[in-house]
């Protein structure tokens, strides 16, 4: 019951705040503040004449509010969105606005409509904010920070209002719009809000234009120093399907006798004529530098800033490790265990980033699921990067098992701000090919720069 009432209350106050922010311009907000202040100063009309300013300001506000009751003129608009955006980096795109009216419209402002970001009752009741247990009893009871966090989670991007040039009838001039993605995920755009303000510039009236669209916002990425894992291309055959060209490598190795099935164009005619037997050219089998990027998604909470940082680091490594001559396997557990391979003509790294944009914390599966897929795949790779959300026996066991195969590893452990760094100790004789780094989740770039 309390949760229900709190949810209703927060919904109402959020709606009120949204209405006030939409309804009043900054000048209008200033006039309201001034009117309240003059009301306080001039409360005793016998002592001060501030009440005269009070009356004038409220008259202005009253006229402005009445004026703003009339709807803004209707417009049509469409946008040309890029396929992808990146969290933290401004996204520029073009929009064209059509004025279906008969007269030129001046001083029209355009805003993106992202829809209602308020969480539903179920979301509010069932999704505790990361670190909520550490809050004081008052905050835990009223759950205001939970509401604010859920609102922020749903607001993937912010957009500032843009003043449009004079809109002539029927014309559709293209204008550049700017969005600021805040975090990764699918950004849904509902439409546009066109606003005009009253003659005094205090209140706004709106008209809405529906233009649903969506864009994938990729994870934020960090600059990485040159990473050398120490592994080499050795017995990691990619197989035909992973080769950049159909067939075998063009690198000549030796000649041998013909076997059934060898292509005729590989027959070495000179040797055949000398020996009297069919001799064919043998080519070097194609090997790849193949690296694994292991992402720890196991979290007790529905979301966490530490997890977001881990995804960002994984995205950064995906870009840094990928090249035309190597393969990269991304291993993580979502609804099930995933192994995504990119590079060397198999898939673009952007494909991997798209997957990382949608990856969610795993609260139900076990760490052994990740261990299983990693150990199945690890024999193929020459090096691995592990990004862990914490350090415990399960993770230590996985690292030691990979190490026993002689595969060099870079292990990054993300630590929550203010928490004590975990002590990393391996079993005797293990950890020879392991390089570890503990990164403070609030200073990720700083931590990565030290690698």
């Amino acid at each position, binding site marked *: 019951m309390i949760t229900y009432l709190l949810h209703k209350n927060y919904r109402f106050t959020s709606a009120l705040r949204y209405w006030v922010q939409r309804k009043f311009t900054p000048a209008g907000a*200033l006039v309201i503040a001034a009117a309240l202040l003059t009301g306080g*100063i001039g409360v*005793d*009309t016998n002592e001060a*004449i501030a*009440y*005269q300013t009070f009356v004038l300001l409220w008259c202005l506000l009253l*006229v402005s509010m009445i004026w703003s009751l009339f709807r803004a003129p209707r417009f049509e608009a469409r946008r040309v969105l890029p396929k992808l955006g990146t969290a933290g980096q401004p996204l520029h795109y073009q929009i064209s606005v059509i004025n279906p009216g008969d007269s030129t419209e001046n001083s029209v402002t355009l805003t993106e409509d992202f829809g209602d970001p308020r969480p539903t009752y179920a979301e509010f009741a069932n999704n505790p904010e990361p670190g909520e247990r550490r809050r004081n009893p008052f905050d835990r009871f009223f759950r205001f920070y939970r509401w604010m966090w859920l609102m922020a989670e749903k607001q993937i991007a912010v957009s500032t209002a843009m003043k449009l040039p004079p809109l002539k009838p029927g014309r559709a001039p293209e204008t550049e719009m700017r969005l600021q993605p805040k975090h990764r995920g699918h950004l849904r755009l509902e439409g546009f809000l066109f606003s*005009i303000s009253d003659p*005094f510039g205090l209140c706004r009236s709106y008209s809405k234009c529906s233009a649903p669209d969506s864009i994938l916002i990729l994870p934020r990425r960090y600059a990485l120093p040159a990473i050398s894992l120490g592994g080499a291309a050795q017995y990691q055959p990619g197989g035909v399907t992973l080769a950049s060209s159909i067939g075998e490598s063009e690198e000549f190795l030796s000649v041998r006798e013909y076997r059934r099935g060898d292509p005729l164009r590989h027959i070495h005619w000179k040797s055949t004529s000398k020996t009297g037997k069919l001799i064919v050219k043998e080519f070097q089998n194609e090997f790849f530098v193949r690296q694994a990027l292991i992402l720890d998604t196991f979290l007790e909470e529905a979301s966490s800033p530490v997890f977001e940082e881990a995804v960002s680091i994984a995205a950064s490594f995906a870009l840094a490790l990928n090249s035309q001559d190597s393969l990269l396997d991304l291993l993580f557990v979502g609804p099930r265990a995933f192994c995504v391979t990119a590079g060397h003509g198999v898939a673009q790294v952007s494909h991997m980033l798209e997957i990382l944009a949608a990856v969610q914390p795993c609260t139900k599966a076990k760490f052994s699921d990740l261990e299983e897929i990693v150990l199945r795949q690890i024999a193929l790779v020459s090096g691995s990067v592990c990004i862990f959300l914490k350090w415990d026996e399960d993770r230590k066991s996985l690292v030691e098992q990979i190490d026993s195969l002689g595969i060099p590893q870079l292990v990054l452990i993300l630590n929550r701000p203010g928490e004590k760094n975990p002590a990393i100790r391996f079993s005797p004789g293990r950890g020879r090919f392991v390089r570890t780094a503990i990164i403070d989740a609030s200073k990720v770039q700083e931590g990565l720069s030290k690698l």
Partner: protein
Amino acid sequence: MKPPPLLMGCALLFWGWRTGMLWVGAIAGSLLELSNAVRNRWEFTDQEYNRLWDICTVLFLGAAAYLRLSEEITSAAYKFFQWMPLIYYPMALGHFFGASPAIPLKAFSWFLRRKGAEGGETAVAFGWIYFVVCLVTAGATNMRDVWFFAGTAVLTGWALWSIRPRRIPNWGWCALFAAVAGSGCYGQSRVQDLQGYIENKASEFFVRFAHREFDPGQSRTGMGKIGALKQSSAIVMKLKAEAGPIPERIRQCTYTYLDGTIWHASPGRTFEDVPIEPDITTWTLLPDAPHTAAVRIIQRVNRQSALLSVPLGTVQLKELNATALQTNIFQVLRARGNPGLVNFIAYSGDHSADCPPLEQDFDLGDEEQAILAIAREINIDPSASFKKRIAAISRFFQQNFRYTTYQSARKLGLLGLRPSTPLSDFLLKTRAGHCEYFASATVLLLRHFNIAARYATGYAVQELSREDDTYVIRERHGHAWALAYVDNKWIEVDTTPAGWETAEQKEFPFYEGLKDEWSRLAFSFLEWRWLGDWGFFRLAAPWLAVPMMLFLAWRIFGRRMSQQITPREAQNWPGEDSEFYVLERRLAKRGCARLNHETTGEWLSRIAPENPTVAASLGAILRLHYKYRFDPDGIASGERRELRELVQACLSNEPARG
């Protein structure tokens, strides 16, 4: 983001004109407008904006403290608003002369300045906020003429014109604004009528809140209130006997008619001027009347108009600095045009200037039944003299009633189906109450026994200051008593049981002493402010010394401790204090300075043949210096010591030359 040219200057000029600081406004406005004339701008950093706002905050707190101590609360509040443009002027200067069109929001909030706080970068158009502050605070005065509204309307219109959307033609905009300004002009002329209506309908609490001093027209008593009466320890005045004894009570108002729980003084609403003597500080209430006592009164008052508290029978006031003194038929004194603290001598005699008894002075109001019951209980001989009747009434209250500042709803009978009046409950049921009960009942009983009586309010004189032999009157010393007309003169009849002061003191919280001391400090500040009495600083010294010593201790020891804990953080960059630089300077003096294009390693390789003694340890020094300078993990304490010792060894082997 900044107001258009000249608007800010005009707003400050307008503010200065309305608040009586025309020259200040003119200079301040001109200085800000100078920013439009010069092209050079300061590149303020966020830190510098923070410092500017901190200065404004200090000015804000200083002005608030100064005005709170030096002025009566209402005038202090208005004066504070008037000073606001000056308080925020440093920030305005920074904004108008700064290169940035806006100031980050975090400059205005220590909360947002915290590391990791969100929203601090929001741009704030401080110029417009400052314009509004000037416009609004220009109205915190009481100079009434048509020019205030006209000026406000013009400045507001100018500001709105500069930001208007170009959707309607200019003439249409002007017409609309003129219509709004006209409506505002009419509306403001009716606001005072509206306030009068609201005040009449306002609750008792609101009225009491708005008028902290006694109202000469009526007195809302605390009779019938539930719970404990809240009383303040703020000092209202000080008294010192100049001649004769100190009065036990000093009166401020007198009332004649009880209606429910409110005493009225309808005939006392008319005030007349008291004639002033040629020395312009002496005011005579009763010419040629002899006086037997004189008391010096230092009273905290409203600067515009205030009721003075004087002993009964006051015939003359001397040394009173006021532009006018008025009185009514009950000798209630109202001074106008005062300083914040009045200091005068009241001369009093046996005969007061109070008018003889009126018809209302015998009225029993709605309490006749209760009074009759009590009168039967007292059972006074009808032939007894007035003085004996008064003595019998006083004796009756002393023997049968007790003093309390707490009333419960059940005992007062307010929970019953037919609630009676608080006074009748006091007389017939509870027989316990505070001074207003006793005074009201006494007045009605005296009237029942054919003695003209009135209800007087003021203060009891009971707290003698140990230091300067003066009596201190606090707000909690507020008192009520009866006046009886006996032998052609008014005498005071106080039937409140003796020891009521002690009864009140028992209910004081443990920190009451601290509040009393603070009140003494505040009053002594007023004495210094208005009378030039430097005793304030003697009293303030202990209050100021403790925080200052704590501050000094924090500055000295806090910094030292922080240096010990994080020596690396105190540096501008890692390795700033490396001894390698000493060695470098020494070698430079010897003519082996490092060239601009050379790395440190190249330089040391070049000079090594010329400095064989240094060259031996140069490699180790350079390795340790680089580690100290560039290693993210820092340098171990042992290595740091090694670096220091190696450099010292080099320096001692190569004495400085030149």
